[in-house]
């Protein structure tokens, strides 16, 4: 009887330790799950913010933005600047590499194009690098497309697709 009593007491102590350990492990697992969810959400939000920030930056780049004294609207891009920059992508292999490599450090995996809807329909690709990302964040920004030679404004949309 006495030895059984001490064995039971020992078993009880071990049982308490096992239960406490189980609770602690559960707590840690749940905490990490919460943390992981929170971090994934932050990453997702950051990617979305980056895409939105990119759309704001592109319309104010000197490579595209209307010159001073021309159309003063919000999001105005110059037609001949668009033609110049999309023309650079069509040049020889060496030239493509130079421009593409330069902008890759800035735009990473993205497809940036301007679709002129009026007066005539035309699409200009400014930058393209698909990468291996499967998720696509797409932002459309209506823009005024200014022709400095005819001094007229067309209507178009700047489309930015970011591959994540």
């Amino acid at each position, binding site marked *: 009887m006495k030895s059984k009593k001490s064995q039971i007491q020992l078993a009880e102590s071990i049982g308490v330790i096992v239960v406490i350990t189980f609770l602690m492990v559960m707590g840690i697992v749940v905490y990490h799950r919460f943390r992981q969810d929170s971090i994934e959400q932050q990453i997702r939000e950051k990617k979305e913010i980056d895409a939105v920030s990119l759309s704001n930056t592109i319309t104010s780049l*000197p490579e595209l933005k209307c010159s*001073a004294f*021309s159309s003063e609207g919000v999001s105005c891009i110059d037609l001949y600047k668009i033609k110049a920059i999309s023309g650079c992508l069509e040049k020889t292999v060496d030239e493509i590499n130079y421009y593409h490599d330069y902008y890759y450090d800035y735009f990473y995996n993205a497809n940036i194009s301007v679709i002129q809807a009026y007066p005539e329909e035309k699409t200009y690709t400014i930058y393209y690098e698909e990468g291996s990302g499967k998720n696509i964040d797409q932002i459309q920004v209506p823009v005024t497309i200014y022709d400095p030679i005819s001094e007229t404004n067309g209507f178009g949309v700047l489309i930015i697709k970011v591959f994540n």
Partner: protein
Amino acid sequence: MIFFKKKRAAIGMQFNWIFVLIAGGIFLIMITSIIMTQQSASNQEISAKLIQKLNSYFKIEQESNVFREIKTYQTVIDFRCTEEGVSDYRVSGITQQTPVEPIFAPGALSGQTIYLWTMDWKAPFKIMSFSFVSNPKTVFYFYNDSQNEDMVRKVINEFPKNLSRNMSYKVGKNPDNPDVDLGETNYDNYKVIYLNHDVTDTEYPYVEITIENDMDGYGEIFFEEESYFLGKASLYGAIFSEDKESYECNMEKAFKRYKILSNLMLSRTNELKAGYSYSSCADNYYNAVVNLKTINKTTSLGFNELTEESIEELYKAVNSLERANDYLALRGCPVLY
């Protein structure tokens, strides 16, 4: 019998304590390691947040002439831009690449405050924003005598008010005795600036800047080897840079962009020249094309390949392009920029 009972109880008690010690010890180790891991993760998170904040300020398109005082936790930020093209900054072991943004800063900044000043680099059109970084523990000593007093005053007057109020800079003729305690605990970086003045004998890092006409012009820079500046922003870049290597590395980034923009502008100007070939605007477009070709040719060589002749040629082309743009604006023709 009684003797055996007492002995057994005594032995039992000891075993109980041993058991408690082992189990308790294991728990303590487990909890301590969790705390250490969480602390390290938390530090990394704080560093990442600081990097995210700094990234938003180091963009190539920023409002010009803006001063920011950034408060942070006690940390060390290391800036690096090397000849091999490695460009980044590091906060507590986390590295952020800066392949396109020119950031002129000392090698390391420690403390809880960072000063950030942005300025547009124009030649003559805006190419990009330069970021100048400093902190309360950085001192600039401007060598000043009757020979260069005016130029020193002009350069210092350009500093934003908040920056000059908070930044340590001294003006005088004795750089080795700057009337500040340069002990390691007080200051991280000390640099002597010679503007339009020969270098005197000093044991501290220095930069000698010879300004040809004015700050918006061009000139020579001498760290311990020769380099050049073009435009006000690059002059301040030389003041804030750690050394020649970091200055030229950042200017190389700027020149890459300059080359691209000048090429795009050349393409557009050719279209405008063709579209306005029979108008009074034609001459100015023709001049602009010539100057843009010069700029394109010089920038294609890279900043490191600049010589005294090429920087002067570049400056002349920049000035000429600016005049052409002004004439076009006066005549109501579509401007270049």
